[in-house]
C-alpha cells in the first residue's frame, strides 16, 4: 500500500480476496481483507505537540482443512504475500493437533446495505494542514481564556471486504473523526473536558467543544468538599456512557451467564434471560441503521447484524451467543457488535428542568478510573472529574471536590428519576443525560 490516502474500492478488494480464495486447497475458509489510515494531531500546554498518521493493510485467513483449523494474517497483499499466507496457514492447519473440530461455522450468504458512514469531509479533515489549523485554533481559545489546555483531533478511514466459502461476500467502508480537549485553570484547581465525534467530521465543531471545556474549567475552580454519601445525581451523557458501557464490555455472553460467572447468571443456576433487570422504561439495544450511531451491518464475525435489544422494557431479552456455543444449543448465533444505544422511554427533561427539581444533588460531568469491583453485580468504582457541582434548592451553586463512587449500572437503571434526549456520547454509544436517586459516593479525592 502507498502513502496516498485512500481505501481500497469494492472491486479492488473483491479482486484480491477472490484471488486469495482461488489459491486455497481448504474447502472451508473465510477471508477478511482491508486497509485503513488515520491522522492525529495533538497539543498540550497550549502548544502543538505532534502531527502523525499511519496506514495499514491487512488480510486475514481462517481455514478448515480436512477437519483441521488454523488462521493467519499479513499486511502484504502482493502476489508473493498472498502465496505465503496461504502456504503458511494451510501448512499450520495440517500440522495442528486437532481434536473434534466442528469447522468454521460460517454464516450464510446474505446481502446488506451500509447506512451513511463514509464521508469525504472526514478525509479532508484528516489532512495535516487542516488538523494543524484545528488544534492551533483550540489552543488559541484556551490561551485567550488564560487556561492551559491539552487535546487532539483524530480521524480514521477504513474498508473491509469479507469473503467466505459459504458464499458470504460483503464490502464496507467507514470514516470517523473526533476532537477532545481538557482545559485546566492556572491555579490548578479547575478542570473541564469536552468531546465530539462523528462519522461526518463536519458535525464536529472543534471551537464549540473547546469553549465547553474552558467554561467548565472556569466554573469548577476552587472546589469545596462535601460529605460523601448517597445523593441525587444528574449525570452527563459521556459519564452515563462510562457506566452503562461496562455492560457492553462484559461481552453480554450467554455462555458466561450459563456457567455462573456473570452479572447475567442466576444465583440458583441458569441465566437471567426473561428476568427484569432494570426499570421498565429502559431499553438497551443496537441498530446498524441508528441515525445517531450508524455502523455497518457487516460484522467482523462474518454475520449480518440487525436491530437487536439486549434489554427491552427492563427485561433481559437477549445475550450474545458465539457460533460454537449456538451449535451446542441448537440455536442461532447472536453477535455483540460493541455499539449500543441506551434509551429511557419517558418524556425527556432538559438539564434546567432536572436541576430545578433537585433539592440537593450533585451534577457529574465525567468519571475516570472506572473499574469493575464485582462482576456478579457489575459493581463499579471510579472517581468523578472535570466538573463536579453541588445543586441546592433547584440551582447549581458551587463546584465540589471530586469523589469516589460505588455503583452498578444495574442499580442506577433501577433508580431513575428522569432522562434527557439521547446523544452520541462516544464512538460506540448513544446515551441520554440521566437523573438518578441514591447514587453512592464513598470518599473524597484530591485529584483535579
Amino acid at each position: 500500500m502507498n502513502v496516498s490516502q485512500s481505501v481500497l474500492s469494492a472491486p479492488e478488494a473483491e479482486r484480491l480476496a477472490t484471488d486469495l480464495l482461488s489459491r486455497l486447497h481448504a474447502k472451508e475458509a473465510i477471508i477478511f481483507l482491508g486497509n485503513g489510515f488515520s491522522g492525529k494531531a495533538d497539543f498540550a500546554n497550549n502548544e502543538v505537540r505532534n502531527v502523525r498518521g499511519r496506514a495499514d493493510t491487512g488480510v486475514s485467513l481462517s481455514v478448515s482443512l480436512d477437519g483441521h483449523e488454523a488462521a493467519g494474517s499479513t499486511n502484504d497483499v502482493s502476489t508473493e504475500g498472498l502465496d505465503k499466507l496461504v502456504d503458511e496457514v494451510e501448512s499450520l492447519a495440517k500440522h495442528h493437533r486437532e481434536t473434534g473440530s466442528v469447522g468454521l461455522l460460517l454464516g450464510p450468504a446474505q446481502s446488506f446495505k451500509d447506512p451513511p458512514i463514509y464521508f469525504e469531509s472526514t478525509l479532508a479533515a484528516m489532512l495535516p494542514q487542516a488538523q494543524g489549523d484545528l488544534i492551533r485554533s483550540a489552543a488559541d481559545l484556551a490561551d485567550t481564556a488564560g487556561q492551559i489546555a491539552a487535546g487532539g483531533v483524530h480521524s480514521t478511514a477504513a474498508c473491509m471486504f469479507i469473503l467466505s466459502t459459504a458464499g458470504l461476500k460483503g464490502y464496507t467502508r467507514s470514516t470517523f473523526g473526533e476532537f477532545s480537549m481538557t482545559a485546566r485553570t492556572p491555579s490548578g484547581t479547575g478542570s473541564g473536558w469536552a468531546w465530539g465525534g462523528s462519522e461526518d467530521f463536519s458535525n464536529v465543531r472543534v471551537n464549540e467543544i473547546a469553549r465547553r471545556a474552558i467554561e467548565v474549567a472556569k466554573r469548577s475552580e476552587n472546589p469545596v468538599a462535601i460529605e460523601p454519601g448517597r445523593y441525587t445525581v444528574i449525570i452527563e451523557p459521556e459519564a452515563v456512557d462510562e457506566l452503562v458501557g461496562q455492560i457492553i464490555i462484559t461481552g453480554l455472553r450467554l455462555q458466561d451467564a450459563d456457567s455462573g460467572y456473570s452479572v447475567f447468571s442466576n444465583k440458583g443456576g441458569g441465566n437471567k434471560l426473561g428476568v427484569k433487570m432494570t426499570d421498565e422504561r429502559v431499553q438497551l439495544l443496537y441498530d446498524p441503521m441508528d441515525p445517531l450511531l450508524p455502523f455497518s451491518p457487516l460484522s467482523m464475525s462474518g454475520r449480518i447484524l440487525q436491530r437487536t435489544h439486549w434489554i427491552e422494557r427492563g427485561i433481559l431479552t437477549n445475550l450474545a451467543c458465539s457460533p460454537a456455543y449456538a451449535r451446542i444449543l441448537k440455536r442461532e448465533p447472536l453477535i455483540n457488535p460493541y455499539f449500543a444505544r441506551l434509551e429511557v422511554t419517558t418524556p425527556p427533561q432538559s438539564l434546567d428542568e432536572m436541576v430545578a427539581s433537585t433539592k440537593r444533588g450533585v451534577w457529574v460531568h465525567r468519571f475516570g478510573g472506572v473499574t469493575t469491583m464485582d462482576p456478579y453485580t457489575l459493581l463499579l468504582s471510579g472517581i468523578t472529574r472535570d466538573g463536579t457541582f453541588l445543586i441546592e434548592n433547584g440551582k447549581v451553586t458551587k463546584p465540589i471536590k471530586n469523589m469516589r463512587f460505588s455503583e452498578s449500572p444495574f442499580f442506577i437503571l433501577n433508580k431513575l428519576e428522569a432522562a434527557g434526549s439521547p446523544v452520541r456520547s462516544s464512538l460506540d454509544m448513544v446515551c441520554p443525560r440521566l437523573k438518578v436517586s441514591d447514587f453512592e459516593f464513598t470518599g473524597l479525592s484530591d485529584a483535579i
Partner: protein
Amino acid sequence: MGQYSQELLGSVSVRSLNRRDFLRATSAGITALAGSQFFLTDWARSQSPEALAKGPSFDKGQLRALAQKALEAARASGAKFADVRILIATSLSVNVSDSGALAPYLWNRAEIGVRAVVDSTFGFAGDVLELDADKVALLAQTAVARSRAGHARKARSFEFVPAPVVINGSWQTPIEIDPFTVPVGEQEALLLDGLDAVKIVKASEPVLASCGVAWMRHEDIFASTEGSTIEQRTYTAMASAVAAARSAHDKSLLLVRQVGSLRSGGYGYEALRQANLKTEWRRAAEEAVRLSAQRTKSVEVGRYDLVLSAAATANLLVATIGHPLELDRALMLSTNDKGTTYAMPPDKVLGKLQVGSPLVNVTANRSQPGAGATVGWDSEGVKPDNFTLLREGILVDYVTTRETAPALRGWYEAHGQQTRSHGCTIGSGADQPALHLPNLTLNHGATQISVDELIKDVKKGFFIDNTAPPSVDQTGSNTQIPVQVAEEIVNGQRTGLSTNMAISFTTPQFWRGADAIGGSESIMTQNLEIQDPQIYNDLGLIGVTTVPMRVRKVNVTNTGKKS
C-alpha cells in the same frame, strides 16, 4: 467449549479493555486480527536452526539502504532531524483448553515509520513496508509535511536531549531455542500432555484449565540523521496456564491458580520446555481444588494489616508508582489522555516527596535478562540505563525520553547527574515512539523474611496473593483495588477465605505504611502487559520484580452491595 472471560480466569495483566481502541481496530478492520502467532512452513522445518535464525526473507542490506533513503528524503524536504524505524514482525499463538487444541494463529507484518522535525514539532508517517525507494521517500516527505503543518503557535526552540551516536549497533534477545524452529504439532503436544495431568486431579467438579502461548519475533532497523544505525532482534513470549475450580460454598466464586513456572518475557521455546507443565499445572489444579473446599465469608469492613505476595505487590507498584512517574504526566503533556500525577511539578517534588516508607526503594532498567522491556536500545536509539525512581521512599527521578528529559536538567545538574533520556520509549514500524514504563524493581530488604514470618506479626489482617485491575484516579493517588479472594489472618494464623473485598487507599499513605519487605530469597518477576493507547500492536510487556511486603492499617471495603 471453555470460553471464560479473561478477567475471570485471573490474568496477571494490569491492562483493562479499552473499548474504543478495540472498536477502532474493528472499524479499521486491520488490527482486529489480533494475536501474535508464529508458524513454521514445511520449508522452514526442514532448515537447520542456524539457517532459520538468519531471519525472514527481507535482505538486511536492502532495508538499511531504504532507511537511509528515507533520511535523505526527509533532509531534502527541510527536516533538521529525522529518524526511521523498519519493523519485520512475526508471531504465532498456540492455545489449549478443556476442549482440546484451538486453532493456531500466525501473523506477519512489515512496517516502516519516519519521524521528522522541521521547526519544533514532530511529524510522523507510518505505513506498510514496500521495497520501493520512491515510496519510502514519499513517506518521509509526508512526515516532514506533517511537521510543517503542525508548526507551533508561538516561536519556540526544539529541545531534544542529546544521545550518543550509535554506529552499527546490534543486539538480540539472548534466547536458547527459536520458537520458530519447533513444529506447532510438537508445541501443542506439550501443552496437551500438561492438560492430561490436570484432568486426573480428583475433584467433585471438573477442573477448568487453559493455556495460551504467543511467541513474537521482531526485527528492528533504526537509523537517524544524527548518524545512528541500529539493528535488533527481540523475542517475546507471552505465556499463561491456569487451573480453576468452583468453590463448594459460593457457586459464583471461581478459584483460579496461575502456573508460576511458565514464564513470559524475553524467552524462546525454553520457557515452555522448562515450565514442567505436567507437574506444575497439576499442582496448580490441586491448589485450586484445595481452596475450593474452604469456607468463604464476606469480608467485614475495617482497617487491616495486609501481607501482599510479590505478584500482588507488582500490580500495585505499576499502578501507583510506575505510571505516576511517567514524566509526560508530570509535565502536563498528557492531561487529555493518560492524565497527570500526584508527583508534580517536578521542581517541587524531586528530592522531597515521600512516596513510601524508607523500605521502599524502586529502581528501573531495560537490561534485566528475560524481562519484557529489556532491549539493546530504545526506539529512539537511546541505550537505556539503570536508574532509581524512589530512594528510601523519596522521589528522585522519573521515566524519561529524549523529548521530556530536558525538563529535569536543573535537578540532574544539581546532583552531578547527566541530563539524558533513560531510554524509555517503545514503538516501532508504523507506531510513533512513545514514552512507556521500563522494567521496574521494588528492591528486596536487607534480611530474609518469609511470607509466613510477615503473617506471624499480624493480629488482624489478610494475605493477598493476587489482585484484579485497580481503579485509580488520573493522578495515580486515590485507589481502590478489587481482591477476588484473600486469606484472613487472625493472630498470626491464616484462618480462611474472604470474598467481596476491595482495598482502598491514597498512594503515599499506603506505601508509607510498608513496614516489612521480603529478602532476596523471595524475589519474583512478573511480566505484565502495559498497553499504551498510542501503540497499536505492541503488548508493551515489562518485567516487574518485587518481593512480598506488609502494609499496616489499610481500609478494606465490602463490594457485595446489592442496590
